[in-house]
């Protein structure tokens, strides 16, 4: 691992390592498009893909005990050439819907790379299905990982399409906001939600919607907050389509940035900037307490733990933690400021890729001394049972979120976990039949 690693002082931004063949570490906690699609209440997902693509998505649904919300049509080899791509989608979806015991209000129809390369007319398929089933809202969805570097990524696209059924209302509710893009229900003990509640502002999240009807209510909120950049295209589309204002308030771990987020939100809500000094102190106290327990134990963090891995590393380093290594292959534009800060103030911080071919062989040796990992990939690569099972921020936000992460750090340092068992669970927070 050492000969792959670069100190941040010498790392290029945003991509510290050259591309090549890619290793896929067996850490399964990150969500995929199936998990995200399942967030839409009462939706039925239909995949029309090659068997190779179907296998993963269907077993994802099976693992999360959600097979009753999933159907599929397998593409055969002759379908590539016999001009039947559109027919497969229209007739396949039609047959599936006729056989369902109850018609769903919304159907997510997924196609994959092959139909796009074959030039299939997907919009016409959606139009025809809408004609055949006027009571159902059809959403065009895409499982096209080849598009990771052109236009919207599959993840961004999925998060955008998830809100396509929201409809324009005559009057937006000025006392209601949405939180878009979080896979996990936000921790409502966070000062943000307590403050919103105190000011009688409703905050809607898809993760808390229990019916399609309550999901549609999200179309009434006047403002969409996004916490992760992957959700920004969804909010931008809704701003254009429904007139809902968009405010990007990124997950972060620095007191200053958290404060700036709250100030921006207060301004958007036409409220005085809240005084969260008490929560801020509590967060720092929680970090200090964790540090008093963990001390100089090396800490390693991977990019799947949080959308803002460098921000978390910076906060921990500033508190005194011995953050030795970040596992990441690429950084996002929002990381730039933290990258420059760390480069200047903590130049020895190591950056290690996860995708590089050499990483296939990087975890062979057991760690001889205690290491505290944050994130599943970091746990896998360092072979440490002391790890924080944190996936994509886990719904933590603000000062409260910082305190929650501090608590998890301390807990992970004190209580080892079964690495294989924990990281084999597909889709953190989802049910699992395994």
């Amino acid at each position: 691992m050492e000969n792959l690693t670069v100190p941040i002082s010498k790392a290029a931004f945003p991509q510290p390592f050259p591309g090549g063949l890619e290793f896929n570490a067996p850490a399964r906690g990150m969500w995929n498009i199936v998990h995200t699609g399942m967030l839409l209440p009462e939706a039925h997902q239909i995949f029309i893909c090659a068997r190779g693509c179907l296998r993963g998505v269907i077993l994802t649904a099976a693992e999360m005990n959600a097979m009753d919300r999933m159907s599929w049509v397998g593409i055969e080899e002759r379908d590539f050439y016999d001009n039947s791509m559109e027919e497969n989608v229209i007739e396949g979806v039609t047959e599936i819907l006729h056989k369902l015991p109850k018609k769903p209000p919304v159907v997510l129809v997924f196609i994959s790379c092959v139909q796009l390369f074959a030039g299939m007319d997907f919009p016409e398929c959606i139009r025809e299905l809408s004609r055949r089933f006027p009571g159902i809202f059809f959403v065009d969805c895409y499982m096209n990982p080849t598009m990771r570097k052109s236009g919207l990524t599959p993840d961004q696209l999925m998060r955008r399409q998830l809100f396509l059924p929201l409809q324009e209302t005559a009057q937006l509710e000025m006392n209601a906001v949405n939180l878009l893009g979080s896979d996990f229900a936000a921790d409502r003990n966070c000062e943000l939600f307590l403050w919103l509640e105190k000011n009688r502002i409703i905050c809607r999240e898809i993760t808390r919607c229990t019916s399609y009807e309550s999901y549609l209510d999200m179309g009434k909120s006047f403002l969409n907050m996004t916490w992760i950049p992957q959700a920004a295209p969804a909010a931008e589309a809704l701003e254009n389509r429904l007139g809902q204002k968009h405010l990007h308030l990124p997950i972060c771990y620095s007191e200053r940035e958290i404060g700036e987020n709250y100030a921006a939100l207060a301004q958007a809500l036409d409220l005085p900037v809240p005084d969260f000094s008490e929560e801020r102190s509590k967060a720092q106290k929680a970090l200090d307490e964790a540090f008093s327990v963990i001390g100089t134990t090396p800490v390693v963090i991977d990019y799947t733990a949080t959308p803002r891995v460098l921000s978390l590393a910076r906060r921990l380093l500033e508190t005194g933690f011995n953050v030795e290594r970040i596992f990441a292959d690429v950084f996002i534009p929002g990381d730039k400021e933290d990258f420059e800060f760390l480069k200047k103030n903590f130049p020895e911080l190591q950056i290690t890729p996860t995708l590089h071919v050499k990483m296939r062989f990087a975890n062979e040796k057991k760690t001889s001394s205690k290491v505290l990992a944050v994130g599943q990939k970091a746990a896998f690569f360092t072979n440490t049972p002391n790890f924080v099972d944190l996936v994509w921020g886990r719904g933590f936000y603000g000062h409260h979120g910082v305190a929650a992460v501090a608590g998890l750090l301390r807990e992970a340092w004190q209580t080892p976990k079964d690495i294989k068992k924990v990281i084999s669970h597909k889709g953190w927070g989802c049910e699992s039949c395994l």
Partner: protein
Amino acid sequence: MKGFLKRLSPFAPDNSGVVSALFEFGGLIAVCDAGGCTGNVCGFDEPRWFTMRSAVFSTGMRDMDAILGRDHLLVDKIVSAQETVKAPFAVLVGTPVPAVIATDFKALRRMAEKRTQVPVLTIESTGVNYYDKGASKAFEMLFDTFAVENLPVEKDSVGILGATPLDFSSCQAGKFLADSIDKKAYVYGMGAGLEAVKHASANERNIAVSPSGVAAARLLEKRFGTPWKMASPWLPEELLKNCSSLAGKKVLIIHQQFAAAALREKLLAAGADDVACATFFMTEKSLTAPHDRTLKEEEDLAKAVEEFKADVVIGDRMFKKVLPDFQGGFIDFPHFAVSGRLWENL
């Protein structure tokens, strides 16, 4: 409608079969995809992924690679990875996108072999066929490439062809298969590695233990005259125990054909009235009995049970979903390529 599945999960595809067959031979395996297929192969279809350090990677294909046919970039990646892995050979595994854009695998092989100076196996799996087809191609190409030297025959040595966890639903199947044979057994791909492949001509005989091993067995027979037979010499004890009281019954077994046929022999010997085999996968005519069925759609399965008037069905418990009206007995016979379940995890 063809390809329509409502209750069964899609079975493991051919690209998973390729990786499974070649997983233990030390090659550099590059799946020609954007990451999704490799994720499925390693995340769902390869139970050894967590415990063995085989070099399986995604080529990280992007839209412009496919549209512009940037094969030289792929070869660059192979060359760069080979500098690290130093594998005795490399493998390029096809997926749906290369199938649609008609990737020239032969050209890729020539380009990659020239630059890496090691043999490169290109296996044109498409992601639309089942695992056994991919595994069959992979075993055949592996032996075609490496089993070239004609060595003296070693007495009592047996080559076992076609063993994968996808077929046998156990990561220990190699050991169980070897233990079940009273000879020196080389279970290729589950215990016996590349050196054993190079010495395959020394085998006194070969056994194809699944349909995936037949093409390689035929190749070795043609090349070295090695006699071979089809058989599945190991069936799990637990399965046999669960099937111990089927005398007088009509039984339908759903699995890969060789395993089903081996179980049929045991059941008939123990007094079963009649036993038919049904499979969604490849079949060999010589193992096919008159009542046997090849299944295509999930409706075919219910029809087979009904028409055979089975008292008992033996198969992966996932198949029960397709038989909601079946009132007879059902005995679980896990098939990893169907449900992703291993005997050791039951």
